């Protein structure tokens, strides 16, 4: 497959400074989730800025869709529409006095018609979960909301690639998880996502590919397991090994057998430990707990509440911005809002019932993930789809 973006032998130096980028070659495929990881001043932001033509490299070429990027005004506009860039500080990016005007900034400058602008803005606000914020001035928003406005402003231009410079650096942990969940959702809709971060715990389970940077150079590029396993590389990049990886390395050095892949989530590590215990550590008396999946577009608030009143659900998880809004409107307090499927599988293995609320395509994703888990691990975790009907306790299987 042809790469979406290709960088070849890039070099760049800021005036009167040592080289910021040297000898950078990189291929980015469509639909990838890439995390650029490195210490402060490793050149992450500079590299990201070369991707949409904000910085013109001194040497080397940037290719997008097989064509070299040219730096005249018209081509730059085109590439910046296709490759959206979200700045680290939302206060830098938000330029208009109200949320609506800010999100409309891109579409208006792309000469959309009035209806198209309206549509693009409401779609973008919808997908980041900020409906009803149109008239708010930005200084009234929380950090997470500002970040969402910044992302919506880029989404409104319908880019293929989303670049986010340190998306979680100014957010609290819950806000960070929300943003990462949103990025997952956008990736699921087909957008290629590239972030920079120095939070290894965040990047490790999230990314498809990790690119480690040190002093303007790429020192490793590969799956998170590969990139973070090499202690020497991690040390050079001034990072630390993700705690799960470290744990599994320590277990291995103590003679515990680790089957196949290295763990990326708590679920993986539980599996490894279970494997060593020949099967399961402990299953509750009634076997596996069921995972119920509800589509918030097909089911109403009262129905969910009626179901919850009759059946005992130990955990409620929400996936995606729309499901989060619905849960809030229906007065549900979700227990999990990030890495929902894995956490629900963990619950199920422990004999607990859980309910996942989500939308459209994500429902199938839950089924696929659980079925795959069942197949690869010889498990029989039941997963059922909730269908909204007049009879509130109708938990029909699929």
């Amino acid at each position, binding site marked *: 497959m042809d790469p979406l973006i290709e960088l070849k032998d890039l070099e760049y130096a800021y005036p009167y400074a040592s080289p910021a980028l040297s000898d950078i070659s990189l291929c980015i495929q469509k639909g990838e989730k890439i995390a650029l990881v490195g210490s402060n001043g490793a050149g992450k932001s500079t590299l990201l800025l070369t991707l*949409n033509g*904000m910085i013109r490299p001194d040497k080397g070429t940037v290719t997008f869709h097989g064509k070299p990027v040219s730096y005249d005004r018209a081509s*730059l*506009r085109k590439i*910046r*529409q296709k490759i*959206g*860039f979200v*700045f680290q500080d939302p*206060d*830098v*990016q*938000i*330029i*208009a*006095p*109200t949320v*609506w*005007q*800010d999100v*409309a*900034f*891109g*579409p*208006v*400058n*792309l*000469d959309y018609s*009035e209806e198209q*602008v*309206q549509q693009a803005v409401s779609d973008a606000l919808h997908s980041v979960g900020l409906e009803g914020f149109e*008239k708010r*001035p*930005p*200084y*009234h928003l929380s950090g997470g909301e500002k970040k969402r406005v910044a992302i919506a*402003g*880029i989404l409104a*231009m319908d880019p293929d690639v989303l670049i986010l410079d340190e998306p979680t650096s100014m957010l609290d942990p819950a806000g960070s998880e929300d943003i990462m969940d949103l990025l997952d959702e956008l990736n699921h809709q087909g957008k290629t996502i590239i972030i920079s971060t120095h939070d290894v715990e965040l990047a490790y389970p999230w990314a498809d590919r990790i690119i480690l940077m040190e002093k303007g150079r790429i020192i490793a590029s590969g799956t998170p397991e590969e990139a973070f396993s090499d202690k020497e590389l991690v040390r050079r990049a001034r990072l630390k090994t993700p705690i799960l990886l470290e744990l599994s390395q320590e277990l291995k050095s103590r003679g515990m057998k680790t089957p196949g892949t290295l763990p990326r989530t708590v679920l993986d590590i539980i599996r490894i430990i279970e494997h060593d215990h020949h099967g399961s550590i402990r299953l509750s008396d009634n076997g596996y707990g069921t995972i119920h999946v509800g589509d918030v577009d097909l089911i109403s608030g009262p129905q969910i509440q009626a179901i919850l009143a009759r059946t005992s659900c130990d955990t409620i998880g929400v996936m995606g911005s729309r499901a989060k809004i619905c849960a809030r409107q229906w007065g549900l307090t979700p227990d999990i809002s990030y890495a929902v499927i894995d956490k629900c599988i963990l619950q199920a293995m422990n004999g607990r019932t859980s309910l996942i609320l989500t939308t459209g395509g994500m429902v199938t994703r839950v089924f696929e993930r659980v079925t795959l888990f069942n197949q690869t691990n010889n498990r029989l975790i039941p997963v059922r789809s909730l269908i909204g009907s007049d009879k509130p306790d109708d938990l029909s299987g699929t």
Partner: protein
Amino acid sequence: MFAHDFLEEAAQHNALLQVHPYTKLLLGIGSIILVLFTPNYIVPCFLAVTLSSVTILLAKINLKFYLKLLGIPLSFAFMSALIIIFLSEGVTKIWSIQIFPWFTLTVTEESLNHGLHIFARVFGGMCALFFISLTTPMTDLFGIMKKLKVPDLFIDLSMIIYRYIFIFMEKARQIYLAQQMRLGYTKPREALNSYSMLFGSIFITSWDAGEDLIHAMDCRCYNGKYAKMITYNPVEWRSLSAVSLYLFIIIGMILWTSG
């Protein structure tokens, strides 16, 4: 120094936010114009009381905040009115005091009326002005400017200025706090020094912010356009007719009191 109880902050939360800005502007600007035609202090006082009650009772603006706000212009107006009362000419003498052999302060009926009238006009006018600024946030006014065909350049600039006032205010507050923590304002000389440093860093910050702004706009394909379509709730006939009725009553009162 960095009061966070901005007018704008109050306006964003007022209870009349959903009313169409045209209606509110008609009431505010109409009152300001009418107050100029009043013959004596009765109508302006009536305007001041009614507009204040609308601001406090209908727009739900905090009474203490409102009085504090009104206190600033009224204290100036009070002093000016005093000077007019004591110094302007008149026939019917009410009271006088000789301070120096060559300087006498005299209050006449004419000067008293004149002073009271000026004070009442300022009072009424300020109430009308505060009614506008406390019920109609700037963000709504940008749309009105667009509808009134104000040049785009002017609106765009004022929108950018509006956006950055809050950012610079916050920055200034942070620097001020940092200086205070290191005892930057303990001695007058030091205070002067710190104050100049504060403004120096704000200047540099604004310079940086300007460059960032250009980058941010470039990143989003800036082509000389700024989104301005702002939607309002439709003009409500009920509130609009109430406002018109009110203004007609004021006109009637003016005619009656001057007749």
